[in-house]
């Protein structure tokens, strides 16, 4: 009887120590869930979710402060992916956060630009090039289409243009045909 209690107690202490050591030795820094959520977000950094960027939104989802349907640029695909990750039911996009629209690109009308740098300060990904009293321009490759530069412009010289499909982005469409039960 005593031996059994003793043996189990010793085992318990040994495993407890092992677990305690592992918890310290292999401690995970930060919240890995935030990284996982962040990797599913489109990184537009537009703030339509009411958080200042994708990572803060990911943080809020992980903390349970925000819902998974607040990201218009990500659209349904992102909501679905988040629902899969967090094991929740997908729900339609919250219309308060915006609507799903085709991807756009900011274009500065260069002759109108007065070089005020306000858009440069607004751009979350440093995709606008320019200096005070010098013409600005958008680095198209880096632009995420977040529209944050449009409002600050005092001369309204920034337009959002839809991204046109070209050969490098074209892919085969989903096959569409009529399904018939019996051959005509």
């Amino acid at each position: 009887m005593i031996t059994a209690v003793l043996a189990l107690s010793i085992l318990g202490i040994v495993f407890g120590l092992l677990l305690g050591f592992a918890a310290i030795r292999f401690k995970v820094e930060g919240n890995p869930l935030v990284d996982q959520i962040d990797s599913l977000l489109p990184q537009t950094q537009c703030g339509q979710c009411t958080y200042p960027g994708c990572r803060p939104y990911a943080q809020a989802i992980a903390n349970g402060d925000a819902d998974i349907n607040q990201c218009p640029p990500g659209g349904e695909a992102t909501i679905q992916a988040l629902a899969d990750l967090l094991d929740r039911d997908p729900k339609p996009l919250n219309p308060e956060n915006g609507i799903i629209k085709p991807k756009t690109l900011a274009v500065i009308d260069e002759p109108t630009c007065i070089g005020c740098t306000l858009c440069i300060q607004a751009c979350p990904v440093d995709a606008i090039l320019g200096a005070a009293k010098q013409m600005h321009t958008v680095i198209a490759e880096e632009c995420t289409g977040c529209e944050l530069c449009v409002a600050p412009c005092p001369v309204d010289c920034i337009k959002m243009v839809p991204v046109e499909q070209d050969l490098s982005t074209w892919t085969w469409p989903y096959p569409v045909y009529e399904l018939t039960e019996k051959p005509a």
Partner: protein
Amino acid sequence: MAQVWRFHGGVHPEQHKTISTREPVANADLPQRLTLPLNQHIGQFAEPVVKPGDRVLKGQMIARATGYVSAPVHAPTSGTIVEVDSKPIPHPSGLSAPSIVVESDGEDRWIERTPVADFTSLDPSALRNIVREAGIVGLGGAGFPTYIKLNPGKQPVRTLVLNGVECEPFITCDDMLMRERADEIVSGMRIVRHALNAGECIIAIEDNKPQAYESMVYATRNEKNVHVRQVPTIYPEGSEKQLVQVLTGKEVPSNGLAIHIGVVCQNVATVAAIHRIIHHGEPLISRLITVTGNGVKQPRNLDVLFGTPMGELIEQCGGDVDMIDRLIMGGPMMGFALHDVRLPVIKTTNCIIAAAREDLPQSRPVMPCIRCGACTDVCPVNLLPQQLYWYAKHKEFDKVQEYNLFDCIECGCCSYVCPSNIPLVQYYRFAKGEIWTTEREKEKADIARQRFEFRNQRLETEKADREARRNKKKAALQNDDPARSDDAAKQEIEAARQRVHSRKNEANTQRDTENTTE
């Protein structure tokens, strides 16, 4: 006869080949205007080196290759550049691409050609360079820049395979090339063998082309270690991986290339093009094209300059462009429909089918999948087309990749045998495209995330710096020498004012001198 192996599945579609082999190859008429897209190959667009108004000679480079996977474009005839602009190209998307339009002057005058006197004295890298500058790409249909395939790296090349299989129905351009220009192919083969240092060479021809076989056997009668081999007719035997399996019995690994098992495959027309640049100094500006289908009265093969409008070829073969039911570039299995007869011929155009109503099965009604498994029986890559179909249809892209979607060669055997007429290949193409798009967006998102985080970091450092400066100033003010009198401060202010004043004066005088000099 040496042993040939076989690959899984395959189909035997109706051949329709003999209709276009009755006539010998003829030159196509010189067109008035030639439209040359800058992406007639796989890879990056070529970059124009001419502008509208420039006079060019036949064979002159008009666009140069950019990057590694790219090929230059040459003027197919002499004339004037009239446009460098976006033009519709023969592509399933129906989109336009940057193109150069040449107006022919009718003289067809060559630029000075410099053939290589003795290619055996050149090292392989010099040969590759010549092939690259000649704009030669795989003429079997894919259009992959050939010079890259001539560079096996450290992999030893045991076997060079010349692909004269031509398994798709209707297409006969390689057949006619082997019948009429076998010497050019053999000469090109010698060059490629030298470039690759390949021991053995196999020329593979399907057994439905006995004349081409005879012709190649005769042309190679004095060659050492060259085997012309007849392979049983079955589609898609002309696909590189399937052909390698038939000839060697070895399967090219998933995600691998033929070179990984010591084989390099070249189309017969491609090696003939290599012969033309080395021995005649002529870059790739034309090719043989099969113009066939019941929409033309005289189906045949033509030697066509790139950029020629397809409609002109159809008319030359006695067809009426208004009476064509469907225009198809490539074969009926892997080709795609075009909607404009004015589209130009490009490097990868091996066949134009001007189809009358009776040529091709009209789209039959699509019915639900009955899980019969016929698609699995014919898949030459041993995939499970039915499973791929379900997952692609329901956009489960992780699952389609688990079922090796990217090993699919889009040969169309599964769609061909499907009793429910389901356009299976379209689903696979759709799924591949979606996966590529997602990957591309993911890459862009990663870059955006990095830039966003970098910017936040920068803003924070700037803020911290400002804070630190302010604190320093505050500290300095507090530690200010109490003994310092008001006079000293006043003196400092006065000195500063003087500095500003003198700087202003300086600027004024400078502006004055500038004004006077103007």
